[in-house]
């Protein structure tokens, strides 16, 4: 099978949260903890989690208005008041090429599907929670009342029936595009080139590069600012890349323990 994935083009996201809602509906995700006003622009969801598999981030910035970005405010009345520019981005599990959650799962509950996506088998997960700190994006999480770990399945059940994931289906602006990853990468490169031509110099791709620390993401993004502004790690690395070295260091330390104990018995009469 060809690898399927998401290209999320944040330059056309209008922050409608249809993806969040569609995801909740289709996947029967339970309520998040009691809703709260977070004071983070229009974002009261906060972050991805066990019951939030799409999360729309809102960043309000003083606007250089001529960018043609969604903007609001009195900028034409002769005052020097800056307008407002929003950065909006729908975040999701990255379905990494080298997925740390999958690597560290001791039960085999996390597996790679025929679409090259990463999914938790809920009937196998025993809630050990190791995948949670392993994820370099802070995506997968344990549901406290349930005990098991949950994250985006890239709508594994829909893909099998030839449907698109719920979020991509619901997105009204094609900010969320689903398709064959190779084709999405070409489309994304073309889109960045167009934006650069139009003077949007800050447009850049994130997670598209197979040479990055996670081998490239199955779900990648076009961003209009630094990744950390959106709550994304700037240079994530799959932790298991360093695992062979860690085992070697631990083995040496274990030999040190043997040596210390053995010497302690040789080293004195009592």
């Amino acid at each position: 099978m060809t690898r399927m994935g998401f290209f999320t083009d944040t330059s056309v996201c209008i922050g409608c949260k249809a993806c969040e809602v569609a995801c909740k509906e289709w996947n029967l995700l339970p309520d998040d903890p009691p809703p709260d006003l977070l004071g983070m622009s229009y974002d009261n969801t906060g972050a991805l989690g066990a019951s939030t598999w799409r999360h729309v981030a809102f960043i309000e910035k003083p606007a250089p208005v001529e960018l043609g970005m969604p903007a609001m405010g009195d900028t034409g009345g002769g005052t020097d008041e800056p307008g407002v520019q929003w950065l909006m981005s729908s975040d999701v599990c990255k379905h990494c090429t080298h997925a740390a959650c999958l690597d560290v799962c001791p039960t085999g509950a996390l597996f790679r599907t025929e679409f090259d996506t990463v999914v938790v088998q809920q009937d196998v997960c025993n809630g050990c929670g190791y995948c949670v700190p392993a994820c370099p994006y802070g995506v997968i999480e344990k549901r406290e009342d349930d005990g098991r770990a949950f994250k985006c399945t890239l709508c594994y059940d829909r893909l099998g029936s030839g449907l698109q994931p719920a979020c991509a289906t619901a997105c009204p602006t094609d900010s969320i595009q689903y398709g064959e990853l190779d084709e999405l990468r070409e489309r994304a490169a073309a889109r960045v080139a167009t934006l650069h031509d139009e003077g949007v110099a800050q447009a850049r791709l994130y997670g598209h590069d197979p040479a990055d620390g996670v081998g490239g993401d199955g779900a990648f993004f076009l961003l209009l600012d630094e990744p950390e502004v959106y709550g994304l790690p700037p240079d994530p690395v799959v932790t298991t890349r360093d695992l062979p070295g860690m085992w070697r260091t631990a083995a040496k330390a274990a030999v040190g323990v043997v040596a210390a104990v053995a010497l302690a018995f040789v080293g004195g009469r009592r």
Partner: protein
Amino acid sequence: MVERAEFQSYYGRPILKEPAWRQPDVPLYLFLGGTAGACATLGALAEPTGRPALARSTRLVAAGAAGASVLALVHDLGRPSRFLNMLRVFKPTSPLSVGSWILAPFSGLTAVTAALEVTGRLPRIRKLTGAAAGVLGPAMCTYTAVLLSDTATPAWHEARHDLPVLFAGSALASGAGAALLATPPAQAGPARRIGLAGAAAELVAERRLEQRLGVVSETYRTGRPGRLLRAARVLTAAGAGLSLAGRRNRLVSAAAGTAYLAAGLCTRFGVYGAGVASARDPRYVVIPQKACQQARPPV
């Protein structure tokens, strides 16, 4: 005083999820597993070198601590009834899978050895199971360092070169502590010596964590983890000093053992807490990753 580095974030919110493990379960597990490992190896050598009291006390401690550590791990699962799923597969890419395959035989062997030690039956089987547990003991001491380091948690992953030494040292000192507490000084010589070796390794490795991990080292120096690790240092030094002073005095020797054990607890809870603190604050993700990016030549 270095100025705090500037960085951008999404409303200061964490990028990573905090470790999903519970406290005290997992830090306690690290402590118990290390103590059990060191004691099992001590016990395996104590019997053939004619120290029956040391063999007995360390084997009982190894079995008790290993059993308790299994309980702590199972209790920490979101679905404890599925704990056997841990042995469904063997995955070298998962330190928890490897650890389960070390812990399962280790806890079984220490339990059988202790039972035979108490009943005095089947001495040849006892020697065999005791020796096998002793071989697995060092792995129990250090695999938990890989368990923590093999995460995206900055304080643990960045510490991957030092944590195994720290955990080996802490396990030796804690194992020595248990042995000093439960063994007459006349037979506790080896325990005193591994205590000193462990204390030295621990102090050196802890120093490196606090100094050499760049901005992430802050998490080992400040807040509750910083206080715990400072307490650990004082207690470790006290344990080492008292163990030398208590060569003929059971009470002083027991005080040394208590100090070592308390130091072990402080170290494990301190390291665990530093990991949680480093996941909570995006600065420990953004600043090191930006530095990595800038260090690479542009493509």
